[in-house]
């Protein structure tokens, strides 16, 4: 039942993106999101797509694995595109006007733009973070990036610790769930038939033991941590100290320039370029 769940889909490798400092990657991710969301003209969209392709290329992740991360989102992508297609009204004459369906030129444009934008967002952020950063690196990076918040007494270390514990326990809980499902199936439990209400009710014998065991594990882990003198982040050192090198800074600067640039590129229209060319010659 749960065997298709892949979480923390880290894809081990040694590409440029794998070697980039995870803190830099987090910052680049923020810039990348701005870049993709701001790009609104065709030219800007082309630039953001090119940058996405560049990221995919330097990640060294196989295309097949990449497509697998898009697969669960296909429905959302198509749904968004269709909504944009049918519900965008434009000033020009509608291209299709049949009963309740009206499609404008603007609708097609916004549907395509939205589709490309979402696809870039999913692909770009998965190659930047989830596929090339191990969960532990990621939580370390989040702790480090958020550490200025410590000044206003936000327990950043504790948040990061909770996050890494949560990530650590996902496979354990999945395994546990499968065991409980098997045990209840052995007691003739039926999860596959009946109406919605019956199916939801059938989950109770799985969820209760699962919660009970999650709480039990949490208590045991807390005890074990205290036995090893865990007392929060104060004065705690790391086994692996993150170090950003020149290459990381270059990568970061490049992305920053591109993100700032996209605001200008947005103002350039194709007509404007044609005008410019005519002026020159």
């Amino acid at each position: 039942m749960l065997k298709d769940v892949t979480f923390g889909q880290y894809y081990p490798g040694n590409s440029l993106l794998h070697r980039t400092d995870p803190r830099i990657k987090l910052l680049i991710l923020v810039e990348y999101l701005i870049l993709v969301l701001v790009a609104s003209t065709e030219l800007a969209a082309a630039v953001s797509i090119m940058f996405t392709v560049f990221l995919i290329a330097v990640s060294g992740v196989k295309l097949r694995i990449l497509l697998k991360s898009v697969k669960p989102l296909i429905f959302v992508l198509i749904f968004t595109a269709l909504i944009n297609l049918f519900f965008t009204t434009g000033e020009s004459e509608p291209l299709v006007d049949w009963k309740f369906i009206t499609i404008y030129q603007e609708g097609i444009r916004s549907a395509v733009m939205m589709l490309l934008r979402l696809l870039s967002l999913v692909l770009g952020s998965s190659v930047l973070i989830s596929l090339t950063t191990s969960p532990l690196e990621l939580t370390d990076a989040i702790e480090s990036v958020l550490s200025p918040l410590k000044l206003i007494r936000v327990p950043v270390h504790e948040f990061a610790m909770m996050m890494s514990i949560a990530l650590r326990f996902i496979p354990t809980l999945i395994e546990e769930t499968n065991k409980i499902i098997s045990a209840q199936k052995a007691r003739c439990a039926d999860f596959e038939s009946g109406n919605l209400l019956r199916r939801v009710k059938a989950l109770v014998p799985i969820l209760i033991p699962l919660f009970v065991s999650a709480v039990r594990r949490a208590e045991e882990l807390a005890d074990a941590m205290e036995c090893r003198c865990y007392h929060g982040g104060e004065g705690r050192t790391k086994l692996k100290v993150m170090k950003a090198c020149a290459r990381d800074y270059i990568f970061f600067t490049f992305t920053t320039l591109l993100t700032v640039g996209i605001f200008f590129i947005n103002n350039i229209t194709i007509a404007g370029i044609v005008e410019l060319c005519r002026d020159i010659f």
Partner: protein
Amino acid sequence: MKNYALEFKNVSVIYGEGSPFRKAALNDITVSFPKGEITGIIGHTGSGKSTLASLTNGLLKPTSGEILLDGESIWAKPKEMIKIRSRVGLVFQYPEYQLFDETVEADIAFGPKNMKLSDEEIKKRVKLAAEFCGLSEKELKRSPFELSGGQKRRAAIAGVLAMRPEVLVLDEPAAGLDPKGKEEILSGLVEYKNTYGATLLIISHSMEDIAKYADEILVMKDGEIYMHGGVEEIFMQAEKLFDARLDLPQITKLFIELKKRDLVNSTDVYSVGYAKKEIEKLINAR
């Protein structure tokens, strides 16, 4: 010819077929479990014991081969697998983690309820199952989460017994229990077997328990059947057992050492009770 409750015919289970991670958990196994007897299954970790257990009630589908329950393939009608599961009871390792209902009584009734039995019948079965597992009337009314570890284990086993399976498969039913609790649970299971003529398959790491309760022993090694035979037949081949990284009952090992020193003349001693008699005989003879 013996009557067999459960038969495996050329059963293989292969994980990740066609990928570089291909691993055969069970490799072409053919074995039969005689009706009304207790077969002890032993084997080193990863030898395929638990895979074998999940095959018996169709939780796992074999890659190839056939599993016959009372002469009929359990995969003949996959839609009626629930019927098979009520006939082959499977108790997993640490079954106490599957308890969920408000009272122990309701939890034990979960299986019979899924079998759509009448309320009256369910009540009767719950009571009987609780008796076999040594749970008192008072404990039936309590929440399963208030019970001690040993009592939880009893409640979970009772939940499977209440379905009144003709074949009962137990994966380490007594692991991690105190000696007294272990004794009570295992003898309760034997009582159940004798009452209903059920067939029992018990997976265990304890050679003592196997020697004491089993009629036959199945030794597994690397997903294959390594040895299969009567208790004495298996424990006589000590060297072969050691090769499978298994052991003999402690009392048998003691007798082997005593024999080496010419203090006793037999080594086919597998239970403390028998050992006591043997030693008394020797003392009287002097």
